[in-house]
């Protein structure tokens, strides 16, 4: 359907002499100066709905967040919002749970991104080896099935994946302990490692497929030349593959890091719940608990502002640097 409409449009729109349109109107489109005001208005008309929506639903709450952070609002003890000066911000530095939470979030981010990028890239290289090294229909189908299997964790809702892992790692009833013949409460004894593994399971597919595209775009002649020179597989990996995909690896890692830092919530909430103690109380969870468990909106707002500042600074730096890379 789409192609036929296109063809029809294409026919009708060729500037054929039969159409007795005035020449000037065609020139108006090709000359940007004359119609620039109208183009500007058109551009605004297309973008204003989104900008207004984001302004209303994101910018306004953030302004309100700033307001709340300078106030005390504890709906449990009093419905009033009272000025609090800088006390919420001073608490950020004096309250040890905040510093601890920052450290935990950072550890989680670094560990999971390292595992995901290194293991994911290795998988991508192996997958490319299989895809390029085999011929025939059976092999093609096989590599497609493999690809589909890797996609599943990514498609699984985080909360469902988290509960699946919690059952898997359960001290009494979990199959992992049954296989090992142990009764280790993994989520209590290795809480941070556990959430890193779960996150790696969920997000590695993303890295695999981004890196696969990068590996597949390397000129195959490079490998042929290297093979003629007697370079082995390992040598080829380090001399050809890795150098050519390194820029994409770095960008992927940076994006994953911002994502991991800002969005880790469901997995931790449903597995360790931030515990034991404060061992896995990542920043988003700390903010949420302060606001909705302790009902201290002022303190939560200051924490939230801190989290926003960190992620927005890193995110903006990332976008700017990437833009420079592309152009």
């Amino acid at each position, binding site marked *: 359907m789409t192609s036929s409409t296109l063809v029809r449009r294409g026919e009708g729109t060729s500037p054929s002499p039969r159409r007795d349109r005035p020449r000037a109107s065609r020139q108006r489109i090709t000359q940007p100066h004359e119609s620039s005001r109208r183009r500007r208005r058109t551009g605004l*008309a297309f973008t204003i709905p989104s900008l207004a929506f984001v302004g209303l639903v994101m910018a306004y709450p*953030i302004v309100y967040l700033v307001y709340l952070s300078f106030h005390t609002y504890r709906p449990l003890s009093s419905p009033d919002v009272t000025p609090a000066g800088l006390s919420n911000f001073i608490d950020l530095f004096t309250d040890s749970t905040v510093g601890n939470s920052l450290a935990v979030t950072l550890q989680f981010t670094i560990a999971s991104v390292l595992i995901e990028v290194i293991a994911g890239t290795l998988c991508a290289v192996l997958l490319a080896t299989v895809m390029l090294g085999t011929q025939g229909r059976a092999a093609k189908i096989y590599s497609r099935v493999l690809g589909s299997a890797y996609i*599943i964790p990514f498609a699984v809702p985080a909360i469902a*994946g988290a509960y699946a892992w919690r059952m898997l790692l359960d001290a009494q009833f979990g199959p992992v302990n049954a296989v090992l013949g142990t009764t280790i409460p993994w989520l209590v004894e290795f809480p941070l490692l556990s959430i890193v593994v779960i996150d790696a399971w969920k997000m590695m597919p993303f890295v695999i497929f981004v890196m696969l*595209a990068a590996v597949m775009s390397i000129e195959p002649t490079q490998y042929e030349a290297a093979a003629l020179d007697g370079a082995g597989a390992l040598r080829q990996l380090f001399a050809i593959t890795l150098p050519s995909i390194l820029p994409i690896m770095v960008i992927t890692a940076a*994006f994953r890091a911002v994502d991991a830092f800002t969005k880790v919530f469901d997995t931790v909430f449903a597995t360790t719940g931030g515990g034991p103690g404060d061992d896995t109380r990542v920043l988003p969870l700390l903010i949420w608990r302060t606001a909705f468990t302790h009902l201290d909106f002022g303190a939560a707002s200051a924490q939230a502002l801190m989290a926003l500042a960190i992620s927005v600074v890193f995110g903006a730096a990332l976008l700017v640097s990437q833009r420079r890379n592309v152009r």
Partner: protein
Amino acid sequence: MTISYHTRKRLGVTAASVTLTVLAVLMLVPMAWMAFTSFKPDADIFTTTPLKMPEAFTLEHYSNLFSQFHFGPSFLNSAIIAIATVVLSVGLGGLAAYGFARYPWRGSGIALGFLLVARMVTPAALVVPMYVIMQSLGLLNSVTGVIVGVTVLNLPFVIWILKPFFETVPKEVEEAAELDGLRPFAVFFKVVLPLAKPGIMTAVLYSFLAGWTDLLFPMTFITDAEVMPLTSSLLQMQTGYKIYWGELMAGGIVLTLPAVVLCFALQRYLLRGLRTGY
């Protein structure tokens, strides 16, 4: 003894595919175990020999979901949230992405920059003031608040995905359509949209997933079980003194299945989305 280059290469390919197969099986274990457990009777779940095959499988946990845990309404609520997220974010985001791609105005670069940085916003930070605002608007305990929250976080991503697609549509096609007397909005809907279908499908898929899988907004805004989507309904199975493991596993499968089926059906677009910068 030397091995020829081709033998070595074939050995390498075989080793790679064996490694990958083992890894793929390992990655499937968590969800496979979840499905397996969901069909077990309670006696075979709460045992120290979970690997033993149960004598019989049961659908009891699945029927409990609907009789005890409001999964009927929850499923519907999840669908409403997901579809509304798709309509709102692809509708608004599609227009904006086209505007940014084709009709830049002074300051549009900065506006786009802000929209993209909005992608990096910590959802848990946004939910704090939003809760207070929704409360004063009387929008707690309704799917509306959730839809608005999910959409505003998803919209920047949709614009990010769609803008490059619109940029690849040949300008000549649009100019020709304009010559034909079509106004810019008509050009967009009648000419550009059909051409950008792969991009639109990608945006639709990711928006649906964003709405379907979101937990943060519903668990914060909704306390009434009848209004909850599947994600926050799952949390209800974990009470202070008891975890309904069987129902939890069955519920996880009910939540997962539509997402996975959709991802398989639209796998092409899923991968495209990953590559154009998830």
